[in-house]
């Protein structure tokens, strides 16, 4: 109930368009507040750095709020915000050229020694982190955030069969990494 809030509400009564914007905005804000931890974790999985991950979350919120006019349906908000978030993450990786090595053979031996611990689950967690971007995005959203493949297709702006292909190639790659690790 800030001054700003009700001035906008006041405007909203005069003009229906503004009123709709008001309700959409507060809906988006609630949505962001509820899911902020998820957004942070995803960002962290990409950039592995607290400050950068916080920056990404912040940039995502700014973009979501500034471009809210382009969101037509409320129920698409979930995938739309993820889309912006993932975009920001990949952008950041490209910008800083801190891309995580893609192929298992590209990783030095030290990497394995350092990163992989005793438990097999941790091996899997780390293995997911070093997957190529596209496969990683699918696996991360599907297994960590329980998004459907259809939703992931919307987020990555591809079609369902592409998402499936990426999922299977990702799983295959994971198997290879895990096998090598166990041997």
């Amino acid at each position, binding site marked *: 109930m*800030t001054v700003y809030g*009700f001035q906008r509400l006041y405007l909203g009564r*005069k003009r229906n368009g503004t009123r709709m914007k008001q309700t959409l905005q507060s809906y988006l804000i609630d949505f962001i*507040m509820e899911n902020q931890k998820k957004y*942070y974790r995803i960002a*962290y*999985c990409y950039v592995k750095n607290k400050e950068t991950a916080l920056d990404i979350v912040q940039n995502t*919120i700014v973009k979501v709020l500034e471009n809210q006019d382009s969101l037509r349906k409320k129920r698409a908000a979930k995938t739309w915000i993820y889309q912006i978030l993932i975009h920001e993450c990949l952008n950041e990786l490209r910008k800083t050229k801190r891309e995580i090595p893609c192929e298992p053979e590209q990783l030095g031996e030290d990497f394995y020694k350092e990163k992989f611990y005793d438990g097999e689950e941790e091996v*899997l967690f780390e293995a997911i982190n070093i997957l190529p971007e596209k496969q990683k995005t699918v696996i991360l959203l599907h297994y960590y955030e329980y998004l459907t493949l259809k939703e992931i297709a919307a987020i990555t702006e591809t079609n369902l069969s592409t998402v499936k292909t990426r999922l299977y190639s990702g799983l295959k790659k994971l198997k290879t990494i895990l096998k090598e690790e166990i041997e």
Partner: protein
Amino acid sequence: MKKFEEAKKIYDKIEIPEELSGVVKETIEQHKQKEVKIRVPYWRYSVLAAASVMLCFTITLNTNASFAKTVKDVPILKTIAKILTIRSYEEKDDDKTTTVNVPAIEDKREETSRKINDINKTIDEKIESYVKRASEDIKEYKKAFMETGGTEEEWKEKDIHVNVDYKVMSQTENYVSFVISGCEDWTSAYSVDYFYNINLNTGEDITLEELLGKDYIEKANQSIRSQMKERTEKNKELTYFTKEEGGFETISKDVKFYINKKGNPVIVFDKYEVAPGFMGQQEFEIK
């Protein structure tokens, strides 16, 4: 697939930094304020709206016989008292921009006019003292900013605003409930809300006891506790301070509230009062 569940457990354990909720909140707040700065002054909307209403009116009156009849049947609204803006100004100096709308109750009846006048006077004084304090705060902040190597130009870029405005929460023939809010946009810590619930027949403040009965404290406490529980159960991200953390125990006699359109009191806690900052101001309707 089970392995993935294990991996998700590790994922869920990725530590959430303390700063996150602050960053999120701040970003949203900044966006809201940016939006306000580019807004069209709302009197333009009123003029436009009034013009379009008149236009519609003429057309309908001329074309629709039954509408003409309806207009005649509408009883004249008898509002004896109303809230209006008596003073409105915007002031810009080197430190900040100040925008103020001062409300007052206008009441034509003689019996209550003296009391209402007193209320209007205190409203005016409160707002003036708020603006004065805000400008002192900002002066101090600017001094610190300059001493730590800031330049006049960087300060200008901050474009600091002080805003005072009011909102009528509900109004009937018998009472009016409104809130005056003041805020400085460089910090959310200095926002204030003054609530007024005034019985228009007597010119006195309406108390919670009048609305809820003698056991109003217990009634309100119970309702607040159960609403807090409900909210945190519905959304796991929300938390209220525990008793140990200085959280809610009981309302005091002069707790802030307003009366909503349904005529129910709504108790308001400031940001940080009963919950962490990201939860903002907390409101509880007592039915």
